[in-house]
């Protein structure tokens, strides 16, 4: 039972990290039918920029540079803001010119951006991983993670924080999309861009805001991931990015609660699979889920059975 609770909670936390990237995938796909593979790399930049803001010295381009040494809770919003802008710039330069091109062109552009960003990160931060500073609020004087026990399972306060922040972010995002005027414009643009323009919606601006939000969420995920696993590396976004994409498909692409549900389910499946089947195949479970899903319910758990497009 102890082990069960432990794996459940570990999976829940991992799933939250997937969900934070998955919302970006799902929102962007919902509106322009593009799989923005670069979200994995924006996640990675979220971790790196958080580290940059938190340390007092860092090596950039092989040179030591002094840094502000900010608190984690200040560093992460700054990282989210910077990555959000980066996401908007990517959309403007790499995707908007291809808006009316065949979809494959935009997809190839997305893969190109993703590889480019990995290389940029490697050039700036080096190819070796950088360690993520400990967060004093979640660390004891002896340098251990502050934790508590439920039925013998050890749960750290940092894990609780990750889950809590993700839930708050998801609820806020869902309210934004379902209740606000801009959220309504997003849903309208996802259904019919031409008619949205006729209503007075600046669709390009809506798409930019979608990238802004998706990128900020990805950066938040990266910062939390870095703080949980204590590192950042140029390739760190690849695997979580792929898993998050599966999570988005699992939940029903274009659907925000679906991305959350898909992320959590995937995290838990991976955690249990690794624990009870074999840890060597942890990543394989995500792909098994994807294959089963595509066979039996390709529209995803919360996706409508009719086509998402009108």
């Amino acid at each position, binding site marked *: 039972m102890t082990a069960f609770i432990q794996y459940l909670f570990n999976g829940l936390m991992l799933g939250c990290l997937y969900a934070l990237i998955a919302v970006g995938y799902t929102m962007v796909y919902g509106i322009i039918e593009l799989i923005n593979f670069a979200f994995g790399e924006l996640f990675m930049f979220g971790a790196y920029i958080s580290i940059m803001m938190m340390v007092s010295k860092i090596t950039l381009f092989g040179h030591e540079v002094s840094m502000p040494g900010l608190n984690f809770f200040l560093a992460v919003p700054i990282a989210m803001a910077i990555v959000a802008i980066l996401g908007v710039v990517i959309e403007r330069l790499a995707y908007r010119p291809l808006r009316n091109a065949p979809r494959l062109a935009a997809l190839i552009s997305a893969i190109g951006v993703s590889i480019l960003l990995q290389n940029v990160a490697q050039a700036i931060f080096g190819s070796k991983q950088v360690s993520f500073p400990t967060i004093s609020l979640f660390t004891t004087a002896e340098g251990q993670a502050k934790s508590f026990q439920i039925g013998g399972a050890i749960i750290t306060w940092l894990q609780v924080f990750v889950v809590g922040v993700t839930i708050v972010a998801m609820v806020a995002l869902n309210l934004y999309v379902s209740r606000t005027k801009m959220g*309504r414009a997003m849903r309208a643009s996802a*259904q*019919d861009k031409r008619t949205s323009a*006729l209503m*007075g919606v*600046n*669709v390009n601006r809506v798409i930019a805001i979608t990238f802004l939000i998706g990128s900020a969420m990805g950066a938040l995920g990266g910062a939390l991931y870095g703080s949980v696993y204590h590192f950042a590396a140029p390739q760190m976004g690849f695997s979580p990015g792929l898993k998050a994409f599966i999570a988005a498909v699992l939940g029903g692409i274009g659907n925000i609660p679906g991305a959350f549900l898909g992320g959590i389910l995937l995290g838990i499946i991976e955690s249990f699979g690794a624990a009870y089947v074999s840890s060597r195949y942890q990543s394989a479970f995500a792909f098994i889920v994807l294959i089963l899903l595509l066979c039996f319910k390709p529209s995803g758990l919360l996706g409508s059975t009719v086509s998402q497009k009108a």
Partner: protein
Amino acid sequence: MDPNTVPSQSPANGEVVLDVQDIHVYYGQVHALKGVSLQIMRNEIVTLIGANGAGKSTTLSAISGLAKPRTGRIVYEGRDLSGVPAYDVVKLGLSQSPEGRRIFPRMSVKENLEMGAFSRSNKDLGADFERVYHLFPVLSERKSQPGGTLSGGEQQMLAMGRALMARPKLLMLDEPSMGLAPMFVEKIFDIIKEINSQGTTILLVEQNANVALEVSNRGYVIETGQVVLADKASELLKNPQVQEAYLGGA
């Protein structure tokens, strides 16, 4: 008020709201509009009639800013719309109920109507909802139903209601009677007259040329991207060529 008993204004007098000057529109290689010109006076109802593919919808798209004319100008209330993007045109008081209704299928009726008011800075939509629900009581019964689940006729009413939510000075209706049961067609035209009498200028595109001309002050006949005839609606109704081509030879 029967518009045919009112002396219709000729383009020479009255206030010109919209002045379309010799516009040419292309879709890639397709030369869809080959020099269309037309004027609309304040408070008129003007109908464009023409066969399928003549260029009626393209004319409305050009006015709304969705299709940019390669040459020619569109002047609305003295302002050249050339550089104005579609999302800003509606803010100037030009709204459209597009061909094929284009309802947002996964949004409720109420949200579709709210989208119609998107361009307005005024947040108080109470009176506007009331007006639309008064004109189309069936929409008020369907408020929270997704637009995609409405019947064709109900969607048509929703498209009109949505266009009204922008509080347009010039309302463009592209085939508002399409898909409606015959008993509703007359009702829709009564509503169009009512909207017009409340002070909205109307540009109408119709296949149902007879009924449309009955409620209109003036009409333009478009053939293969060009205006071939422009006259008072009452004259067009009497014109033998128009009768032959568009009025079922009646």
